[in-house]
């Protein structure tokens, strides 16, 4: 997966690039709008990350050029301004997502993955699995090492999300949004409680733990060497 980052602040750009590269993406970084537009039109990228305020051409102009050239890769905007008009403007021009600084990198990564996944219509899974944990989507049953685990509906949704995006650090805000449809920044510790309960059922009785907390970032479901 090849990404283009157009961001004029060197530090932000550098860390975005490093973070995305370490998450397994091929990334290119340019710091001005003019070369950003040139690369976006010619470089065959899977996703663009554009800052709005750029020297040369601004993010909106690049987006317009990209869409009028008939390219339909997802575009994610970064901006320091949280004006509603900006958001509306961006969405009208064909932006796919929008993040306001300051944002957490885990949030950005989660959104990038969502956008990239949106395009590829994977065949509908009937089962999700990690190690000895197995989730049956049709019968809505969960088993670990062959033992049946009883989950509430929300716990099932939470585990399904973790399994579908295994290996990804999922920020609390994303979990609240996907499982409970709560799309606002909330500083409640509800997600912590929910994860703790899920762990109690899924992990506690087994030696190798699958649900992990990444402090300050979120939660990840993965198999770690013990």
């Amino acid at each position, binding site marked *: 997966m090849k990404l283009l980052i157009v961001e004029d602040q060197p530090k932000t750009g550098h860390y975005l690039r490093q973070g995305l590269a370490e998450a397994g993406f091929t990334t290119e970084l340019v710091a001005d709008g003019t070369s950003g537009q040139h690369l976006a039109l010619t470089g065959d990228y899977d996703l663009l990350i554009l800052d709005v305020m750029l020297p040369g051409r601004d993010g909106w102009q690049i987006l317009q050029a990209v869409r009028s050239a008939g390219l339909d890769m997802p575009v994610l905007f970064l901006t320091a301004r949280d004006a*509603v008009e900006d958001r509306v403007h961006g969405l009208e021009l064909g932006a796919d997502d929008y993040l306001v600084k300051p944002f957490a990198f885990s949030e950005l990564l989660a959104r990038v993955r969502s956008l990239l996944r949106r395009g590829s219509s994977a065949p509908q899974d009937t089962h999700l699995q990690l190690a000895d944990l197995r989730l049956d989507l049709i019968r809505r049953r969960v088993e670990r090492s062959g033992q049946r685990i009883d989950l509430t509906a929300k716990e099932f949704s939470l585990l399904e999300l973790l399994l579908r995006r295994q290996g990804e650090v999922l920020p609390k805000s994303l979990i609240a949004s996907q499982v409970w449809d*709560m799309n*606002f920044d909330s500083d*409640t*510790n509800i997600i912590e409680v*929910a994860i703790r309960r899920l762990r109690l059922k899924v992990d506690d009785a087994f030696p190798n733990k699958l649900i992990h907390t990444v402090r*300050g970032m979120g939660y990840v479901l993965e198999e770690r060497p013990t």
Partner: protein
Amino acid sequence: MIQRLSLASRLALLFAACTAVVSLLAGVLFNHASEAHFIELDQQQLDSRLVTLRNTLQGVDSPQAFARREPQLRADLNHQPDLTLRITTAGQRWLDQAPGVALPEAPGLHSLQQAGTAYRVYNAPLSPGQPGSAQLTLILDITHHQHFLQRMQRLIWLTVGLSALATALLGAWAARSGLRPLRRMGEVAAGVSAHSLTQRLPQHQMPAELAELAQTFNAMLGRLDDAFKRLSAFSADIAHELRTPLSNLLTQTQVILTQPRPLEDYREALHSNLEELQWMAQLVNDMLYLAKADHGLLNPKREPLALADEVEALLEFFALLAEDAQVSLVCEGRAHTPGDRGMLRRALSNLLENALRFTPAGGEVRVRLADDERGVKLTVENTGEGISKDALPKLFDRFYRADPARREGSSEHAGLGLAITQSIVRAHGGRIYCESEAGWTRFVIELPKGD
């Protein structure tokens, strides 16, 4: 031009104009009355003289007879220097003392003006009731009346002028002293600045017309003062709130970097820094949200919402937390209103979170919905200690925390939740308030009925 005149000059000029008009009217009326009075006097005088003349000339019906009576007539007339006489009959004039004037011939009283002299002319037959009787024309010199009337008119004009001038001056003085409270108001207004919002107009000394204005003005000053104090406090609070995490970050990073450490220590330090930073990012985002609300940029959508469904979704979200805290969550009633789902969920979630935080184990948080023709009422009520009367009005202030122990270094709550809820409710045109007694606390949101 007229608009630039001061109120006092305008009033003075209007007073003067009024006085001038009134005294002019009085003068004109008086003038008319005196003229009518003089005419009446002259008529009486001429009538009595006519009677005397008729007596003197009684039975005269020919020039010869007249010649016999003429000496007596002239003697009579000599005693009356202001009267001259003409006697006419069948085109002949027996006597003609008239000045060279064309005299009116119709019977009755006439007025005449000739070369600076005014006359009254009175035509009457010598022997009334006899056809062909000689015609008497009495001509009375009334110049002295005329002089009197002219003096009178001059006096009237003088009075008009002087009284207008006097009222203008007195009016100017009266208006200036009458408008003194207004000037004082201006002085207070001029003295208002960011540093002295405390000055107020003395309301009880104001005249009735200005008392209301003074009250409005004072209320405006009060609101300004309040808003300004809040703003200053807000800036100070932001600095204060950021100081704790910043100093943690600084200290920790510096300590970690002073000597080589195992990798795990660095990781631990970075994680800890991350938590502080996330808290700060959340704070900045919340403040931006409030700033947006302050600038009227929160433009809620107006989609039809079944509030009961929204509350159910939120209660489901909070269910785990409530279970942990051994608090029961209840929702009753239903209500529909147009609104912004995301914003209202955020507003309610702040209230629920707040309620859960202050409800002791075994307690209850109850959401009530009610719908009537005036609007929608939503209450979030929790059992617990209750909030003190002093704290109630400050609950929605930014950074206010009812529990001071939570203030310092608390990593979860910056004390902006209720302020954000209030902004959202206001953006929907509603209001929010809090009631509390020992044993319970209730937040009430009232939203107006949509169009």
